[in-house]
């Protein structure tokens, strides 16, 4: 392993290149501060860049994210490390943090790659495409997705057979298997944690049968099916390629549920499900969409109106708790649920069931600092020490939190939270 000391020291180290980290970085750099973004993934833009359209305005997510992402990646005051992780950060003194960063090899010289995709065509390996949430495959030599930034190939070394086919076709000879993991030592004056969230894994709820029944998908899988860079080019059941007709949503999958260890509400699932329902009615005019809910939480600006709009379009809302889901021979799913309005147990048949999975903390952030320095709240999100007066403050002076690292929230709230974090970071830097 190479240990590189990156001599330039930065004003701010932003951990996470999603929409919150990006927004914080832009605010900082536009006021003259030098920023380093560390992104675990191969491209920046986080989960937002993978979404279809966003509630309640229904503008396309990529159209909002991509210009921000390209502004971030182009700005001379921002340095970005993708495919990199912070191993640890030590607070040395006021205005002085030292971080160890591990950069895993991409096996591609990023500056030389033109994104021509010839390597992708040549690669004989096919593995599940994580950016399409496993609905289809991708190659071991691949560009993450068409609007990725940087739009540069990478080699998935775990699945690569080292056949050399990609290297042979690469016109710029930018594939380089001699790359090794690099370690950087970085200095920064302040840190912004924007490590985002994880999605609940419905395999934890066997009674729903996710994984077992192929026509049960997660909301993120449906999101991909609705996005412009979608896997099937239309909406299909992954179990047999049928165009679905009767679509069901199960809200609160993995949220408000102590049995899976997550008692809190995820704040976004009601709205993204209502949004998907509206998009589905647009894409499949004959489809019949039912949302099974406990409470509809359309609380933000324009949300209640958006919910009303969905009802007006004919989306069915059933106040009901799902007991279990079973599969018929034709791949259809039988939902057994307690209809709360009528207080009886009912059954309903659907073609496809979408589990509206909740928001879980990304626990990576706790490990960034030496033992216990960065405090977490009871739900394992980053603890806000002064949530009412200074929501971005954490238990470490000079370290601020932005976006869903501190709790579930939607995109506007993430952006405002990032604004707050960058604002506090700027004050911290200016005041000394």
């Amino acid at each position, binding site marked *: 392993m190479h240990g590189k000391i990156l001599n330039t020291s930065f004003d701010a180290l932003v951990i996470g290149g999603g929409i919150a980290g990006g927004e914080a970085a832009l*605010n900082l750099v*536009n*006021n003259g501060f030098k920023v380093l973004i560390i992104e675990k993934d191969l491209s920046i833009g986080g989960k937002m860049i993978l979404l279809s359209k*966003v509630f309640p*305005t229904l*503008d*396309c997510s*990529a*159209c*909002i994210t*991509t*210009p921000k992402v*390209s*502004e971030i*990646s*182009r700005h001379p005051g921002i340095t970005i490390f993708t495919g990199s992780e912070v191993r640890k950060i030590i607070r040395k003194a006021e205005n002085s943090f030292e971080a160890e960063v591990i950069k895993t090899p991409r096996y591609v010289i990023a500056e030389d790659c033109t*994104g021509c995709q010839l390597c992708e065509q040549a690669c004989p390996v096919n593995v599940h495409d994580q950016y399409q949430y496993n609905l289809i495959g991708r190659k071991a030599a691949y560009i993450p997705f068409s*609007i990725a930034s*940087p739009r540069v190939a990478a080699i998935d070394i775990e699945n690569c057979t080292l056949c050399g086919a990609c290297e042979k076709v690469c016109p710029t000879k930018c594939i380089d298997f001699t790359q090794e993991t690099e370690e950087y030592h970085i200095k920064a004056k302040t840190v912004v944690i924007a490590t985002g969230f994880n999605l609940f894994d419905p395999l934890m709820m066997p009674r729903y049968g996710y994984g077992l029944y192929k026509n049960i998908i997660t909301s993120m899988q449906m999101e991909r099916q609705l*996005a*412009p*860079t979608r896997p099937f080019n239309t909406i299909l059941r992954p179990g047999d390629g049928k165009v679905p007709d009767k679509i069901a949503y199960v809200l609160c999958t993995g949220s*408000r549920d102590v049995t899976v260890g997550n008692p*809190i*509400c*995820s704040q976004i699932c009601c709205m993204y499900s209502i949004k998907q329902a509206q998009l589905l009615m647009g894409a499949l005019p004959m489809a019949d969409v039912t949302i099974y809910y406990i*409470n*509809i939480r*359309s*609380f*933000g*600006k324009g*949300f*209640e109106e958006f919910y009303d709009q969905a009802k007006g379009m004919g989306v069915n809302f059933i106040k009901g708790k799902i007991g279990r889901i079973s599969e018929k021979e034709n791949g259809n799913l039988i939902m057994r649920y307690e209809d*709360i*309005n*009528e*207080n*009886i147990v009912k059954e309903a048949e659907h073609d496809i069931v979408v589990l509206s999975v909740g928001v879980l903390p990304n626990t990576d952030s706790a490990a960034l600092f030496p033992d216990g320095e960065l405090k977490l*709240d009871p739900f394992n999100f980053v603890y806000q020490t*002064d*949530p*009412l*007066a200074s*929501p*971005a403050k954490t238990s470490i002076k000079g370290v601020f939190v932005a976006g869903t690292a501190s*709790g*579930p929230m939607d995109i*506007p*709230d993430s*952006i*405002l939270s990032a*604004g*707050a974090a960058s*604002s*506090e970071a*700027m*004050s911290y830097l*200016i*005041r000394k």
Partner: protein
Amino acid sequence: MNKKIGVYLCHCGGNISDYVDVEKVRKSIENEEGVFLAKTTMFACGDANQKEMVDDIKKNELDGVVVASCSPKLHLMTFRAVTERADLNKYHYVHANIREQASWAHSDDKAGATEKAIHIVKSAIAKVRLAESLNPFKIPSKKAVAIIGGGVAGMRAAIELSNMGCPVTLIEREHFIGGRVAQWDVLFTTNETGKELVTKLYNDLVKRDNITLFTGAEVISNKGCIGDFKLKIKIAPRYINEQCNQGNLQKAINACPVDVPDEFNFNITNRKAIYHNFPSEYPQYPVIDIKHCTRCGECEKICESVDFNQKEEIIEIQVGSVLMATGFDSYTPADGEFGYNRFDNVITLPQFKRIIELSDKKLIFKGKEVKNIAYIYCVGSRQIEGENKYCSRYCCTSAIYSAIQTKKIFDNIYNYHFTRGIRTYGKQEVLYGESLKDGDIYLQSYENDPPVVFREHDKTIVKINDILTAKREMSVEADLVVLVTGMVPRADNSVASLFKIPKGRDKFFNEIHMKLRPVETVIDGITICGACQGPKNIMESVNSALSAAAKSFSYVSKGELELEPIIAQIDKDLCTWCGACIEACPFDAIKMEKQDTKDIAVINNSVCKGCGMCLPVCPTDAINLIAYSNSEIESMIDALAG
């Protein structure tokens, strides 16, 4: 004139191409005069396409660029930046909006939408053919920000701007600072009281010499624009000297014979004409409510600090940016709405919160001990009949938290919640769980069948058809009915009209774009935050306040701003000097000047705002607006008509 124009037509990931036949548009315009290349792209704003545009412009030496995509409000700046990166003056870029004004507006008529898109792109090409290089003006920007509203959001933004080294004028309409939060007792999540939070912020605020605070102050006029707003502020007198002796003042308050409803306690108690809301309130000396003062002179006799000679003051300030944090009003139920103003034990949630704070040991209302409390949710929000369709976001949590507090403080309390579905989003959910565990009863009404409050003998009954028990009709006899009222926009929002801040469908202030530019308004230099923009809890308000502070700071931090060089120009030969343009100009940007043999009108470039009001009044058509000249507009009309 023979321009080499590049045209990029965006699919917008289906937003456009689902309704507009983008390829057909491309074919229809590729042979237009001057068009050198015409391409379609999935995302024009994407990084890859931007790179390609830069390469295209450089390689082919393009000197005109059109992107047909979404509204220029979103991406005009993005693509101007692209041309600049390719060393092409950004005014050689013209934006064509074929999403909001074609694909989306006419998704019911694909052929019509496509036809319209073709015309829109052609007119953009017509305009770019005539485009000329321009350089932006630089104007000085006063490094100072005015914050309107001294609630938690305004105070917090002031502190942050002060931290960044930016002078702040904080203007509060009331005589005391702290806004709504000062009225609340214990707050959810931190268990500090509203007073403590406000005190904490105030103590920090007054330490700083770059913050000027005015209370009892209102902005009465606004002239100027971004970089240089000139505000007139009217400051009402307190009629009490600042160096007052607290001891005698309290006696003076006691001596005041006036008795008026106390708004701070939402009129559940009365106060004197000389008053403060609570003893430690800021500023820490009382005020005389001159509207209700009878000038009896009792207070003056007791206290030398009372001074009826104080006069209203008007001062002027100059700032580069204005941050609006004017907050909300609590919804006031209509007479008879769930028994409000009909039955004396029906009150609002804010009144209830004041009662809890003012009660001691026993919860007493109008002389009677309260045991059964019925909470009716969504009063003034999510209205079935009324105008307020929105959810007020904070009230479920606030009501449940108050209910829990009530049980903690007083004995024998039974809480009945008449809800329309509880919305304790996020971590607030644990509170709902706690309340259920506490034994609170939750009932839920059907969407169009709200609960009913009525009197039977001397008892107040709340009745509901309850979803949760499958349509069972349930009744509760309540000692107190608490209407969980939502947030509404300020009734008196005269300050907003001074600044022309646009409002949304919900009548709250509207941001430019909820996700891209969440604290900016269409009026340059004016930012918004807190609940004046829509219902928010304290944390959310403060997050937006800090974001707005950063944004306002960015307008003033560099001391100068770049302005668009779009100004009026006068054709000397055509001008015969009549003075009509001077009269039309709202900014005094035009002067008469002697030149050679005749008098002509001359534009002062740094004062002209480019509105174009002088254009149509000129009898000899001697005035043109840069980038909107006769030839440009008329060639666009030709293209649209074709």
